[in-house]
C-alpha cells in the first residue's frame, strides 16, 4: 500500500537505454471499497494532466469509486500519478454538483428547468443574430471536453452562426505549442513520442517542471536516469525544481535564466551550435530553409552576453550547448516556463531550431515534445474549437475553406475566414466593450485562470454581455453568469481525446450524470436544434446525435490532412492501448512519430499557416510563402531578444511568476474535492528566495502582501528555492473552498497581479512576466501551506515532508506487455546517422 502524496512517482523500475519501459499497474479505490466490490471496470484515460494515461474506471452501485492504470497502454504502461489516482472520481459524487439549470432573476441565480434556461439562451442568440449578426457571439471553451464536443461546437460556430470568435482556455496553456509547430514545420502536430525517452542520451527540459506537471512521464525519465546508460538532463528553469536536481545528478546543467529572458538564452545556445560546427550542414541544406538568416540573428549572443542578460554562468551556457552538440540523440520538452513567458513562440521555435540544425528529429530518441497543459487541448486545436479551421486547415487558403464548405454543405462565405480566428484575450476585449454580446463559456473558469482577474470579473459580471456558463460546479465564473447549464463530466459520457503524444483514447460512459446534468455534446446539439441551423439543402447542419456519429463525421474531414483519423474507429479504440495518429491506409496501426522522412507539411497548398513575423505577429502572405518554395522543408526562424513588457522598478522591484503544484490541477474544480490532494496543498502561498526574504525581514510562514500595479494578494510566505529577485505564486486558488467557506478573492488569487499582455504569434497570455513588491503584514503561526515534497520545498527550514494520501496499490508486472509501435520492441533501433537521410 503506498501513499502517493508522499511518494509522487511510486516504485521505480529502472532499465537500460534502448529497452522497453517496464509496466506497473497503479490502483486506487475510494475508502471503504475493496477490489472484489468493484462491479465493472470501464475503459477511459485520465483527465488530470496532459499526459493522457490509459485507465479503467471502477464502478460500484452506479458510482465511480476509483481508477486503475491500463497495463497495455503505450502512454503509461499501467501507471497513474497522484492527481489521477486521488482526483479522478471524488468530485463526481460531490454534494455541490450542479444538477439543474440556473437563470439570473433580479440579480440572483435561481434553479429552473432546461426548457427555460436553454430557451433564454436561444432567444437571446436569435435576437442578437437578427440585430447585430454573427459577430455578436463568442465561445470560450476548454482543454477538458471531448473531441466530439469540440468538433460539434466548431461546426455550430463556423457553419451555423458564422463567428470567428471561438477559442479555448488552451490559449492559456498550449497555444504556443501549436503556434511554434506551425511556424517551424508548417502545421501543428507533435513530432516526437514518449518512446524517445527510452532511446535518448540527453533530455532538455525547457521551462518544464515535468516532475510536477506530468508525474508519470517524469517517472519514465527517472527510470532512465536511474538505470544503465542514462541520459544527461539539462533543465532551464528559474526555480530549483526536482528536474534541476536531476540535471545536476546526471552531470547535466541547470540553467536558471532571469524570468523573461528565455529567448536570449536560446539564441546563445543556437550560436554555440554554429560556433562549434555542431550543425549537420548536409541535412540542414536538404531539409530546412533560413539557416543564414538565423545565424545572423544569433551572431551577437555570445555566452558572456547571454550571461549578462539572463544572469546565468557563461560556462553553463557553453556546457549545455556542448551536451546538445555532442549527444547522439536529444529529446527536448517544452512547457509553461516558455509558453507563458516573454517571447513565447520565438523561444519555443528556437527549440525546434536546435533540433533541425542537428538533424535530430523523426527517429527514436531524437525528438521534440512541445507539451500541452491539458488532457484534451490537442483536440481543441485539431477540431478548431480554438478558432482554427478543423483538420489543421489554413484559414487563408480558399481551397481549404472550400473543403469544409463541401463537407458541411454550406456556402464557403458562411465560414469566417477573412482574418485569423479571434483569440481568447481579444474575445474578452470584445466582451468588455460590448461588441460581443453573448459569451458562452464551457468547462473552464476564467474568473480564476485568466490574467488580471479584477478586469475579467468586471467583464463577466457586467450588463454589456450575456454570459452562459456550462460546468460541473458553480465555479467562480458560473457565479457571475446569466445562465448556468449543468454538465455531465468524465465517466458520465462517452467520447475520445488525444494527448500530447497524438495518442487517441476512448473514454466510455461509466455512470449516469447526477440530476438533470447533460453531456456537453447533448447541450450543443440541443442548442443547434433549437436554433434550426441548416445546410444549403435545408437539412439540419449537425447531422449526428451520438458521440460515435460525431467521431465518424470528424474522421471524414481529416482525410488528406496531417491529423489523419480516417483509419480509426471506436471499435479499434476499445483495444488494449490508445493509438497515435495519423491512422490511415498507410499507417493502419498509427504512428509513433512524425517526420521520419524529414518531409514537413510546409508546401504552400498544404500548410496550416503561411507563418508570421515572430516579433510583431504580422502575417506572411500566400505570395510571399509561395516565393520561398518551402516544398516540405522546415523553417529555421529566429528573433532577437527584447526586454519584457514590465521590468522590475524601484516601486515594484521583484519579478512575479505564477505556476503549479503537483497536488492541484487548474482551479481545483476536481483536485480540490479530493481529500488526499487538497490536504497536501490546501491554500495559496508565495515563494521567496532566501536572500529576498532576509532583506525583507520575512521568515517561513509569515503573512505577506504581494502587490503589482494591477492588484494585491495576501498569503503566507515560503522561503524557498526560487532565484533571487523572483516571486512564485501558484495560480490554483480562487475564493472557492471545499469546506463551503468562501474567501476574499484578493486574499489569494494569483491572477490579481498578472498583466493583460500576450505573445504576438501564439496570442498566449504571459503569466510569468510582471513586476511586484512584497511586504510582510504579520507573523505567521506555522509554516506556509505549501507542499514540502516538490519545487515548493523550503530552502532551509526543516519541515515534515508532505504526506497523508489514502492507500493505493501498485504492482510491477514481471512480464511487460507488447506495446504496438514501441521501437524497443518492434525492431532493433537502427543506428541512423543524421545526414544519411
Amino acid at each position: 500500500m503506498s501513499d502517493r502524496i508522499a511518494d509522487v512517482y511510486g516504485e521505480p523500475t529502472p532499465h537500460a537505454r534502448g529497452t522497453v519501459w517496464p509496466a506497473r499497474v497503479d490502483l486506487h479505490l475510494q475508502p471503504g471499497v475493496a477490489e472484489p466490490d468493484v462491479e465493472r471496470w470501464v475503459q477511459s484515460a485520465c483527465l488530470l494532466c496532459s499526459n493522457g494515461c490509459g485507465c479503467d474506471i471502477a464502478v460500484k452501485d452506479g458510482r465511480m469509486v476509483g481508477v486503475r492504470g491500463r497495463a497495455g497502454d503505450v502512454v503509461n504502461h499501467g501507471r497513474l500519478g497522484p492527481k489521477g489516482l486521488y482526483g479522478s472520481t471524488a468530485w463526481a459524487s460531490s454534494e455541490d454538483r450542479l444538477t439543474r439549470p440556473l437563470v439570473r432573476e433580479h440579480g440572483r441565480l435561481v434553479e429552473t428547468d432546461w426548457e427555460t434556461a436553454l430557451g433564454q439562451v436561444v432567444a437571446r442568440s436569435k435576437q442578437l443574430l437578427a440585430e447585430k449578426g454573427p459577430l455578436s457571439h463568442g465561445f470560450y471553451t476548454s482543454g477538458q471536453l471531448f473531441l466530439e464536443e469540440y468538433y460539434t461546437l466548431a461546426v455550430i460556430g463556423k457553419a451555423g452562426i458564422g463567428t470567428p470568435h471561438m477559442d479555448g482556455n488552451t490559449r492559456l496553456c498550449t497555444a504556443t505549442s501549436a503556434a511554434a509547430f506551425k511556424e517551424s514545420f508548417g502545421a501543428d502536430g507533435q513530432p516526437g513520442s514518449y518512446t524517445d525517452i527510452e532511446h535518448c542520451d540527453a533530455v532538455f527540459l525547457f521551462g518544464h517542471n515535468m516532475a510536477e506537471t506530468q508525474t508519470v512521464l517524469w517517472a519514465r525519465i527517472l527510470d532512465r536516469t536511474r538505470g544503465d546508460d542514462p541520459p544527461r538532463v539539462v533543465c532551464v528553469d528559474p526555480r530549483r525544481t526536482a528536474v534541476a536536481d536531476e540535471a545536476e545528478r546526471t552531470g547535466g546543467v541547470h540553467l536558471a535564466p532571469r524570468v523573461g529572458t528565455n529567448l536570449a538564452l536560446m539564441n546563445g545556445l543556437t550560436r554555440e551550435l554554429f560556433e562549434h560546427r555542431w550543425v549537420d550542414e548536409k541535412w540542414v541544406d536538404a531539409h530546412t530553409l533560413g539557416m543564414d538568416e538565423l545565424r545572423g540573428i544569433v551572431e551577437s549572443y555570445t555566452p558572456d552576453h547571454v550571461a549578462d542578460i539572463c544572469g546565468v554562468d557563461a560556462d553553463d551556457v557553453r556546457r549545455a550547448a556542448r551536451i546538445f552538440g555532442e549527444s547522439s540523440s536529444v529529446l527536448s520538452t517544452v512547457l509553461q516556463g516558455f509558453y507563458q513567458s516573454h517571447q513565447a513562440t520565438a523561444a519555443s521555435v528556437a527549440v525546434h531550431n536546435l533540433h533541425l540544425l542537428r538533424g535530430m528529429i523523426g527517429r527514436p530518441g531524437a525528438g521534440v515534445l512541445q507539451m500541452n497543459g491539458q488532457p484534451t487541448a490537442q483536440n481543441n486545436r485539431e477540431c478548431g474549437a480554438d478558432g482554427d479551421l478543423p483538420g489543421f486547415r489554413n484559414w487563408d487558403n480558399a481551397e481549404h475553406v472550400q473543403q469544409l464548405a463541401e463537407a458541411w454543405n454550406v456556402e464557403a462565405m458562411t465560414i469566417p475566414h477573412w482574418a485569423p480566428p479571434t483569440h481568447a484575450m481579444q474575445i474578452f476585449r470584445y466582451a468588455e466593450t460590448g461588441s460581443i454580446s453573448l459569451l458562452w463559456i464551457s468547462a473552464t473558469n476564467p474568473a480564476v485562470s485568466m490574467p488580471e482577474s479584477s478586469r475579467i470579473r468586471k467583464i463577466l459580471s457586467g450588463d454589456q454581455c450575456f454570459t452562459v456558463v456550462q460546468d460541473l460546479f458553480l465555479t467562480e465564473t458560473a457565479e457571475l453568469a446569466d445562465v448556468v447549464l449543468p454538465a455531465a463530466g468524465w465517466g458520465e459520457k462517452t467520447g475520445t481525446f488525444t494527448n500530447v503524444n497524438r495518442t487517441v483514447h476512448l473514454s466510455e460512459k461509466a455512470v449516469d450524470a447526477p440530476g438533470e446534468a447533460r453531456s456537453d455534446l447533448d447541450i450543443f446539439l440541443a442548442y443547434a436544434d433549437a436554433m434550426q441551423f441548416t445546410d444549403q439543402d435545408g437539412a439540419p447542419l449537425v447531422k449526428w446525435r451520438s458521440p460515435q456519429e460525431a467521431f465518424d463525421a470528424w474522421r471524414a474531414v481529416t482525410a488528406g490532412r496531417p491529423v489523419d483519423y480516417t483509419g480509426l474507429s471506436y471499435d479499434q479504440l476499445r483495444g488494449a492501448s490508445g493509438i497515435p495518429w495519423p491512422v490511415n491506409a498507410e499507417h493502419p496501426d498509427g504512428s509513433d512519430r512524425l517526420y521520419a522522412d524529414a518531409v514537413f507539411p510546409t508546401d504552400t497548398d498544404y500548410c496550416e499557416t503561411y507563418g508570421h513575423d515572430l516579433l510583431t505577429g504580422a502575417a506572411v502572405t500566400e505570395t510571399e510563402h509561395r516565393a520561398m518554395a518551402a516544398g516540405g522543408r522546415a523553417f529555421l526562424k529566429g528573433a532577437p531578444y527584447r526586454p519584457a513588457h514590465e521590468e522590475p522598478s524601484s516601486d515594484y522591484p521583484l519579478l512575479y511568476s505564477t505556476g503549479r503544484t503537483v497536488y492541484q490541477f487548474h482551479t481545483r474544480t476536481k483536485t480540490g474535492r479530493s481529500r488526499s490532494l487538497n490536504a497536501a496543498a490546501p491554500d495559496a502561498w508565495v515563494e521567496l528566495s532566501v536572500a529576498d526574504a532576509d532583506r525583507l525581514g520575512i521568515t517561513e510562514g509569515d503573512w505577506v502582501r504581494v502587490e503589482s500595479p494591477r492588484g494585491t494578494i495576501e498569503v503566507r510566505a515560503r522561503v524557498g528555492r526560487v532565484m533571487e529577485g523572483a516571486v512564485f505564486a501558484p495560480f490554483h486558488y480562487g475564493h472557492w473552498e471545499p469546506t463551503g467557506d468562501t474567501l476574499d478573492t484578493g486574499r489569494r488569487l494569483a491572477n490579481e497581479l498578472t498583466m493583460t499582455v500576450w505573445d504576438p504569434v501564439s496570442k498566449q497570455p504571459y503569466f510569468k512576466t510582471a513586476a511586484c513588491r512584497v511586504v510582510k503584514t504579520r507573523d505567521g503561526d506555522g509554516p506556509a501551506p505549501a507542499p514540502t515534497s516538490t519545487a515548493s520545498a523550503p530552502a532551509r527550514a526543516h519541515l515534515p515532508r508532505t504526506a497523508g494520501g489514502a492507500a493505493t496499490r501498485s504492482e510491477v508486472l514481471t512480464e511487460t506487455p507488447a506495446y504496438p509501435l514501441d521501437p524497443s520492441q518492434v525492431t532493433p533501433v537502427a543506428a541512423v546517422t543524421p545526414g544519411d537521410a
Partner: protein
Amino acid sequence: MPHLTTYIGLADHSEKTLADSFQAVARGHDGEADVYHTCQMLAEWSNQHRRDLAPIIERYGEDDSVEEPERLHASGLVEVRSGPVGLLRDLQDLHVLASLVQTTWTVIAQGAQGLRDRELLEVATSSNAETSRQLTWLNTRMKEAAPQALIVTP
C-alpha cells in the same frame, strides 16, 4: 546632390513623425493591449532608423538651401480617435505614414546606389526591410479589427 540631402532629411523627418505617431496610437489605445505594446516597439524601430542615419546626415551636412516640396510632408497623428472604428482609422493613418517612409527609403537607396555610398545603402535597405514589417503588421491588425469595427460597433 542637394536633392539627395533633401531626401535624407525627409527620411529622418518622416521616421520621426512615424515614431511619434506610433507612440500616440499606443497611448491613445492602451485598452488594446497588443496595440499598446506593439506600437511602442515599432516606434522604437523608427527611432533606431534615425540613429542609424545620424552619422550620414552629419557626413552630408544639413542642407537647407533647397525648398522641400510641401507635399512631401505628412503630418503625424497628434490626437488619436476613440473606439474600434477610431482604432481602424488610426492604423490606416499609420499605414499612410509608413508608406511614405518606405518610398523615401526606396528613393534614397537608388541614390545611394548611384553614389556607391555603401553605408547609406545599408541603412536605407535595412530600414526599408523593417518598414515593410511595420506595414505588414498594420495590415494584419487592420484586417483583424475591420469586421468587428465595421459591422458590430454600435
